[in-house]
């Protein structure tokens, strides 16, 4: 059985990791952790720097690369931490880092890696935000056939 934990640079809750480990242990499953590097934020920063700040492209490109490197570093550190906890509990572990939009990458990973249970953090979103942009976790529940476990902040 594959238990998939999906985290992102913008939403990580410690309880989510604990919940995923608990489910994996109970179901004697493999824990697959997917860390999504949200490229939307650095792309937005780049646009603001050039459009609002009237700075040329080069500082924006360098900054975007620095941010993505930082996200990647944070992702691998998080995966190392979870792997260490998984091994301590005798749980089989696989870590994956992907770049893109959170929902799209989570759905793709769940389908490619054949997740049976998806564990995601549910960070607080303003009601207006959810009304206008939709809720990312609600969208995940709509698009996936597997069980989706939400861990609230």
């Amino acid at each position: 059985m594959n238990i998939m934990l999906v985290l992102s640079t913008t939403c990580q809750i410690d309880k989510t990791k604990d919940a995923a480990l608990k489910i994996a242990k109970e179901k004697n499953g493999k824990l697959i952790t997917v860390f999504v590097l949200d490229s939307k934020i650095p792309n937005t920063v780049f646009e603001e720097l050039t459009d609002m700040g009237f700075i040329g492209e080069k500082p924006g490109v360098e900054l975007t690369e620095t941010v993505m490197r930082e996200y990647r570093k944070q992702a691998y550190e998080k995966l190392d931490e979870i792997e260490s906890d998984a091994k301590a509990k005798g749980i089989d572990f696989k870590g994956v880092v992907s770049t893109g939009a959170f929902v799209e990458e989570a759905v793709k990973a769940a389908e490619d890696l054949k997740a049976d249970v998806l564990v995601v953090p549910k960070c607080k979103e303003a009601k207006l935000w959810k009304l206008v942009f939709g809720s990312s976790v609600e969208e995940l529940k709509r698009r996936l056939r597997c069980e989706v476990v939400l861990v609230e902040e």
Partner: protein
Amino acid sequence: MRIDTRPLWILILSKSFRWLVFAALAGVFFFIISAPTPQGLTPQGQKAIAVFVVCVALWVTHVLPLMITSLLAIILLPLLGIMDSSRAYSLFGNQAVFFILGAFILAAAMMKSGLSTRITLLFLGKAGKSPKSLLLGILSTAAFLSFWMSEHAVAAMMFPIALEISHGLGLSPLRSRYGKAIFMSLAWGAVVGGVATFLGGARAPLAVGILEENTGITIGFFEWMIAILPVVIVMLFVAYFVITNFFRVDVDSIDKAKAILKQKIRLKGKVSSEERSIGIIMFLTIFGWIFFGKQFGLANIAIASVVLLFIFKLVKWKDIEDYVNWGIILMYGGAIALGYGLESTGAASWAVKSLLANFDVTPLKIIMLLAIISLVLTEGMSNAAVVAILLPAGISIASVYGIDVRAITYAVTVPAGLAFCLPMSTPSVAIAYSSGYIKMKDMIFAGAILGLTSWAVFILTAKYYWPLLGLKI
């Protein structure tokens, strides 16, 4: 199959927002120009207001890049008979445009040569041994550099250094309060410092350009600095207080950070001849702006310095293209043209008289009102756009109510640069947010306190300090 269960109107809005905005604006535009001309307003003024409304909506919604909205203004003004084409296009050649271009090119030279990074490392290296002193060092370094170059460029340049400091101290993203404090010090230091002179951002020279084009009055480099510096100094202390209280220090030692800074300074090596030469030119340029700005013109001094950079082969043209966004010329030209159109047709003064006729206003109340409107608007839109929108009205208010127009210029422009709360408010805050160490809720409440305090400090400065400089309100 994916089923989106959001309300239908939300779905339609999300798919076709841009076209809906364009359609709505076209409707509003034609409604305004075809409506009966109100008493006291000329037909040209009515059309100028229609153009203004369209530009404001486009700048706020950002469905077109800022510069393209400005281009739209440039073509609508002559097409609607508000001014002739030669006048409209000549406003691209405003001195303010060339001043800010020169300033950005000089900043590009500093960044490309690494001089700005060296200055940052030297300042931070002397920050002191305690965690709080490092925060103060980051805040004041970001602020000081933003006196002399774009605050956004400062934030972008200091960001990797702040990241290395955070790594060196082993700070956890989203968890470490000190990590949050580091990036907020970077962002807010750049924001506060950026209003001190003409060089911190595009808004101040744009404001002076609009002012000069409409009234013939100008504000000198040193004059601006002297009027605004007290606000900046006080706000830096306030920012330090807010940061250290909202993000209480949870590290005991910064020795590792100091070691990193020392190593980076060592790796930088000796000051190169290129850095030295650019530093000298920059120093002489600032000296020229302060002491000879009125005599020779700020733009002339800026462009002369740019020419010197190329005479001494300190930069290549490709470097300039990499670091400068030429769209700033379009933004400036369009904004100045729009302001001129509103003023010359009497639209701005008509709007002011109509809106404020029934209110008991005093000069101080007007300054307070303009400042708070500017402060609120800038949280949601570009600083330069806020100036383009508010200053033409402000200039008319000054003339109607007999207020020194320089005070109005400060009241619109300085708060327009003080956006603290949201990543979408200003690139400096967005850069800090992108670090992954800060949540939005971390900055909203603290930023709001900083924003309101900055308004209060600004008003007190206007009331008690400016009269000492001969600027009465």
